[in-house]
């Protein structure tokens, strides 16, 4: 197991270097000059642009800029926002909990709802209940989350007035308020997680149900419930580790849209604002954190996978 962990951990390093350097060069392909954006178009003179570029280090060659950024990042310094002067690490620290909380809540919601739905869809295959379960899953995949979010706000916030339409409340200030504010974004983001988990688990379960050992179990006279819950589900669950990991990673990306709809101060919106205002240090920092989340989640799911299924870690 230790060798497996070491191997996995070492693979992370080139991945981080590759993604950050890629992001760094992609940012420079963005149209629009950050120095011009900062000075204000009307006030542009070559001297002012030169001073601003000098101050921001934009006049140096790309690889030098990247090297400097990397060296500072390794010491935990991601620079300051070009726009507001806020340290990037401070902004990330404030916003990370919002996004992470949302993604985890949505995945949990996906598992809690998707799990029974998948079991129903697989065991009652062809029947009305099974088709309904599959239908819900198909709906979750097909419906765009900006539409779903608007509909939920319309129904639950504006019409019934049960929940707040927008905003974020910190868990530490008021847990009750935090929950009320989190419900609509969680449902919006979680719908696709429900769908994803239902579909994957259903097909895994269906495959397992046709295997020899399940046929043997049935032949021994074990009831259908026992066959599914005790025998089939255990094996069908292994791929779910990967699916959950992928779902969290994908949801972190989808927060860009959901955070805008619900005006949540999270990483997704930070990314968007940084792109729109050409705030390079902020964008680089935000992307770095998102990449690290995805890598960490993948790493964790690999480790859990290896732990659960010995075939993986020994290969």
């Amino acid at each position, binding site marked *: 197991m230790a060798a497996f962990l070491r191997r996995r951990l070492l693979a992370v390093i080139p991945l981080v270097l590759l993604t950050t350097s890629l992001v760094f060069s992609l940012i420079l392909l963005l149209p629009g*000059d950050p120095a011009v954006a900062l000075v204000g178009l009307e006030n542009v003179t070559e001297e002012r642009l030169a001073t601003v570029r000098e101050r921001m280090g934009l006049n140096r060659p790309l690889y030098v800029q990247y090297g400097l950024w990397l060296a500072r990042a390794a010491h935990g310094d991601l620079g300051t926002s070009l726009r*507001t*002067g806020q340290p990037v690490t401070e902004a990330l620290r404030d916003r990370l909990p919002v996004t992470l909380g949302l993604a985890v809540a949505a995945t949990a919601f996906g598992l809690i709802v998707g799990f029974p739905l998948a079991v129903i869809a697989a065991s009652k295959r062809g029947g009305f209940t099974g088709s309904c379960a599959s239908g819900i899953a198909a709906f979750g995949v097909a419906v765009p989350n900006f539409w779903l979010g608007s509909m939920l706000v319309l129904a639950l916030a504006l019409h019934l007035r049960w929940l707040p*339409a927008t905003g974020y409340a910190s868990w530490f200030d008021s847990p009750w308020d935090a929950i009320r504010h989190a419900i609509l974004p969680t449902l919006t983001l979680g719908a696709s997680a429900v769908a994803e988990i239902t579909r994957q688990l259903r097909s895994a379960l269906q495959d397992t149900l046709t295997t020899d050992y399940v046929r043997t179990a049935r032949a021994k006279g074990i009831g259908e419930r026992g066959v599914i819950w005790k025998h089939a589900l255990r094996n069908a669950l292994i791929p779910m580790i990967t699916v959950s990991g992928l779902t969290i990673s994908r949801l972190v990306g989808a927060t860009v849209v959901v955070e805008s709809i619900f*005006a949540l*101060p999270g990483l997704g919106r930070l990314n968007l604002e940084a792109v729109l205002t050409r705030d390079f240090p902020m964008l680089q920092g935000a992307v770095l954190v998102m990449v690290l989340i995805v890598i960490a989640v993948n790493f964790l799911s690999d480790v859990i996978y290896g732990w659960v299924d010995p075939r993986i870690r020994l290969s």
Partner: protein
Amino acid sequence: MKRFGVVASCAVLVTVLLGISSIEAQPRQGGTLRVAFRAEVSTFDPFKGASGTDHMYLYPVFDTLVRFDDKLQPRPGLAESWDTPDPKTLVLRLRKNVKFHDGTPFNAEAVRFNLLRAQDKNVSSLASELSNVEAVEVADAYTVRLRLKRPDASLVLAFTDRAGMMVSPTAMQKLGDQFGRTPVGAGEYKLVKWTPGDSVRLERFQDYWEPGRPYLDGILMRIMPDGDTRVNALRSGQVDFIMEIPTQDFASLKGEKGIKTYEGPSLAYWRIFLNMGKPPLDKKAAREAINLAIDRGALVRTVMFGLTEVSVTPFPSVYWASNPALKPWPYDPARAKAKLVEAGLPNGFTFDMVLEPAPEHVRRAEAIQAQLAAVGIKVDLKPMELAKGVQGYFRGQEFMAANYRWTGRPDPDQSVRGMFHSTGFYNPGKLQVARLEELMDQAKSVYKLEERRALYQKIDEIIQQEAVDVPLYVAPVLEAMSTSVEGYQPNLLGKPAFRGVWLRPGR
């Protein structure tokens, strides 16, 4: 035309109603006003920012030397009065007993500190606005004398904007670069907390100089980039005031219980920027043909849901520098074709036009494209990201035209000089109309508003005669608020200042 008259009178009526309700009811102290804005403040340092969306955050924190009324005419602010003993001297007499939030007294030395800083090219984005100021002299503790290189009537209204926002000199010297995040002004409210990406919280400044003001305990400004999100927040009672309402949502908010709306003109207008240095746009007849081939009424009806007025001059009809005698360009395809023949282009011509790739912008540009195609003028639409398009058109001279919004300026000189003077940044073709430039200089050197008005009305006329502008329609101010909000005064800049706002109990 009738329709626009109706829209305009509705707008005036709403303004009057909002005004009346605040006169009739007795203002009440207390409460926190919650507002939602699209964009976040870029910095609280008034001289550093360059974004037009900062003002809503800056107005409550920084009192200005000069204030403006609903027609954007100058009114006393931190300067109680001003006069010009000769055209190259501007004397400001300051209000006494004014303090900054940190207790620093406001006086002539503070004004001098601020204006010198505003002129410093290394920190300030306002240096060009104050380029005619040669020296700032402290005549006595409460009198400042500005020595000018040449007469400059635009200064007074410039002092209603960023250049007039006074920061505490002690705080600025102490905080340096940090000032932009922890500002100290002399305004009605002081900053309590700025949570980037989420909100800005302001609280009442107890030692504000105006007795009984402000009425509110504080203002909570929340950042909501999405238009529908802002509408939802108002509808669900999470905020009391929203602006920049999507045009398609505005009609449904009108008349909704518990909500009142305001629609009116702003100084901003939609136009086609033409690079008049590139043929055939250097020919007056070609530009006339474009103007005559556009059906502005149809654009207002379809793209703007009838929520605004057609532009005649670079200013909305209620503004003091606008010429009421001028008529909008008629929609006359036959005459447009005749003008093309006159320009030596009987088969029309082709030009490319940049625009923002958002749905509303594309709809407008496609409508214009179809209208111009009907007379034989082919438009190549170039939708592209704003920063890229703006830099490419104004700096790079890469395109013949741009379909953008002129955002408006506090003084008309800033607008007409920027767009129609041969040295103007927003006139990339550098076309020169000598008569226009003479009038601009003349209008800048007289200080009486009545005299200036007459000169700008003449300027409006020549702009139309020479067809150097392709005005489309006025960008409307669309705002909505809870019926508990009282005393709100909209302004022509479309940048809400919450001076005089109070809240009815029991919202």
